[in-house]
């Protein structure tokens, strides 16, 4: 046990003496959370919609007033009046506005005669997210315009009432579980991959191998020190990340305890995986060349950035084997829903079995010689 602790002591001393390593492991993922979270997470606002009113009678004015109400309150868009359709379309193509609402000359007449009145929204569909926001807002607007001001005594149409059981989850909170897992993975890549191979190349392992340390002690020492650093990263990211992202009751002790278990198991699973990948590697360039791609291969299919329900079939199958999926799943349950153990049992079971398989394979492949 003393030998395992000696390896752990060596790595931890080095870790705490390397500000660069600590910044890379702890600070950069937080920066990533903030940048990603706010880059993707905000509500679309202040789009510019050109209005070409070729009718200019009461029904058309009512529609324009409703648009101005949205511009003043929800601020999804603001309106720019055009007298000429050609000019509006030119500005749309030049990117000065995001859409054009055309109210045709016979709009008021069609409203009055109830002969299928129409307005057209011409949009810049190169930006799908902005387009969806505009379409959504205009669908509501047209729905409100069509609504009968006096509610019928008996409802003729089916309506849907949406009840959200959790408070509103901004994207930064949705992203937080993925960023925590990613930061643990970065720590595993540095500690279990880059430093492991660099030490090997520098001859440090040669120094260990001539001591009476056993194969089990060596593997345990390497794994334990890598896991300890990853756990530390995970804890810092979970606590600070929760506070930054505004997770409700971020410091609830019961949840923190459950999160700690997920952090430990995730760290161990990812270090074990890294150890298996690097166990026979000697070239220091290999981990550096591999890790950029690994990030993509493991993080994006896990549902950390986008729900897995939107994946094609083959990618869903791939996500099933990705340890990130289960780690992110467990963190989501705890951080976004504050569930108990039952909800994360399956995720934890996968991480335990995955770690056991990785460690077993790595141990079989590990050579106690050069």
């Amino acid at each position, binding site marked *: 046990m003393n030998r395992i602790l000696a390896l752990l002591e060596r790595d931890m001393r080095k870790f705490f003496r390397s500000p660069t390593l600590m910044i890379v492991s702890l600070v950069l993922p937080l920066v990533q959370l903030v940048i990603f979270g706010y880059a993707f997470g905000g509500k679309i606002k202040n789009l510019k919609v050109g209005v070409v009113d070729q009718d200019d009678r009461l029904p058309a004015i009512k529609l324009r007033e409703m648009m101005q109400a949205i511009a003043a309150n929800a601020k999804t868009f603001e309106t720019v009046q055009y007298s000429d359709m050609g000019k509006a379309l030119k500005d749309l193509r030049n990117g000065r506005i995001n859409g054009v609402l055309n109210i045709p000359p016979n709009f008021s007449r069609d409203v009055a005669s109830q002969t299928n009145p129409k307005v057209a929204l011409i949009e810049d569909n190169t930006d799908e997210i902005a387009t969806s926001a505009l379409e959504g807002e205009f669908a509501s607007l047209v729905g409100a315009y069509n609504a009968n001001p006096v509610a019928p005594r008996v409802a003729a149409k089916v309506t849907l009432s949406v009840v959200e059981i959790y408070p509103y989850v901004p994207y930064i909170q949705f992203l937080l579980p993925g960023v925590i897992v990613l930061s643990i993975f970065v720590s595993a890549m540095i500690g279990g991959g880059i430093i492991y191979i660099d030490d090997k190349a520098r001859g440090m392992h040669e120094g260990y*191998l001539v001591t009476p340390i056993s194969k089990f002690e060596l593997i345990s020492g390497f794994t334990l020190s890598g896991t300890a650093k990853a756990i530390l990263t995970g804890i810092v990211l979970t606590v600070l990340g929760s506070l930054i992202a505004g997770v409700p009751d971020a410091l609830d002790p019961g949840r923190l305890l459950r999160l700690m278990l997920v952090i430990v198991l995730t760290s161990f699973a990812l270090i074990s995986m890294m150890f298996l990948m690097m166990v026979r590697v000697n070239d220091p360039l290999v981990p550096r060349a591999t890790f950029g791609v690994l990030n993509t291969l493991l993080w994006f299919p896990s549902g950390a950035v986008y729900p897995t329900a939107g994946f094609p079939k083959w990618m869903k199958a791939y996500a099933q084997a990705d340890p990130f999926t289960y780690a992110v799943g467990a963190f989501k349950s705890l951080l976004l829903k504050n569930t108990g153990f039952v909800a994360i049992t399956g995720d934890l079971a996968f991480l335990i079995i995955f770690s056991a398989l990785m460690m077993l394979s790595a141990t079989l492949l590990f050579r106690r010689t050069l």
Partner: protein
Amino acid sequence: MAAVEVEKLTKKFGDFTAVDALSFEVAKGEIFGLLGPNGAGKSTLIRMLTTLIPPTSGAARINGFDVTRDPDHVRRAIGVIPQAMTSDLDLTVTENMLIFAKLYGVPRARRERELKELLAAVELSAWADKPVKFLSGGMRRRLEIARGLIHEPKIFFLDEPTTGLDPTSRIAVWEMLMKLKAGRDLTILVTTHYMDEADRLCNRIAIVDHGKLVALDSPLKLKASIPATSFLEVSFSKLPEGWTEQLKGLPDVESVVEHDQVFRIASDNGPRTMTDLMDAAKRAGTEVVSLSVKSTTLDDVFTHYTGRQLRDELQSGKLDIGYMYRKGSGI
């Protein structure tokens, strides 16, 4: 029982035989030098003896323990200073020592005592709490020597311990090593490229080439074993025709090599050849411009047994894992 017993030890990497049926013994308390050109198989031999790589065939016993069957007992009996400097740069001198003491399972009480004694012996006590990255190459090597002795090994393996150090640091390393050996029951097996070091410090020397043992004896006997006992370096005011052949014909002369109008003459009898040279020059109508005589050195022995051919053979990629960090690992 010898400290090191090697019997027909062989290591092959595919078709390449790095060590070819080497046999020798190192007595307890001896300083045993292992010389050989680059790629001769010295490092591979050391790595087999220190359990870092398994032999292909043959046997080796260290302090009575077989390197293949009983590697843990071997590891407890040996201290190893590999070619590359392997101290942790971010850790202090003391931390480096203590971590290795723990890896060797040295009890806490002994750890502290050994640490103080060893650091004092290698004159690093004043640097005990400084990170290793601030030490010079010579100081780092001294630290590694101290580190290698923290568990009081019986046999100390040093793979080119003074390579890359300046002459003052080299002398300091050896002085400290000798001081440490004096107070301990220690056998030393060392590889080096510095012949003067081997000559002064080793009790016996083995010369290895192409994985084979080509000579093994004390430095004195090795020097006596080669044909010439003296070397004369001489230059003349002018070179008469067929001068090299005339010089070769002088009594006791073993060989004559001319380079840049300076003749290097190997002779069995230096003083007599010197007189003969002066006479021959006078007869041929030329004059001796410069003349120096030196006795046979270990360099001459080395060249005699291994030849002058440059060794640019490919190293085994399998072992050369530190190419990014080390200057050259050697086989």
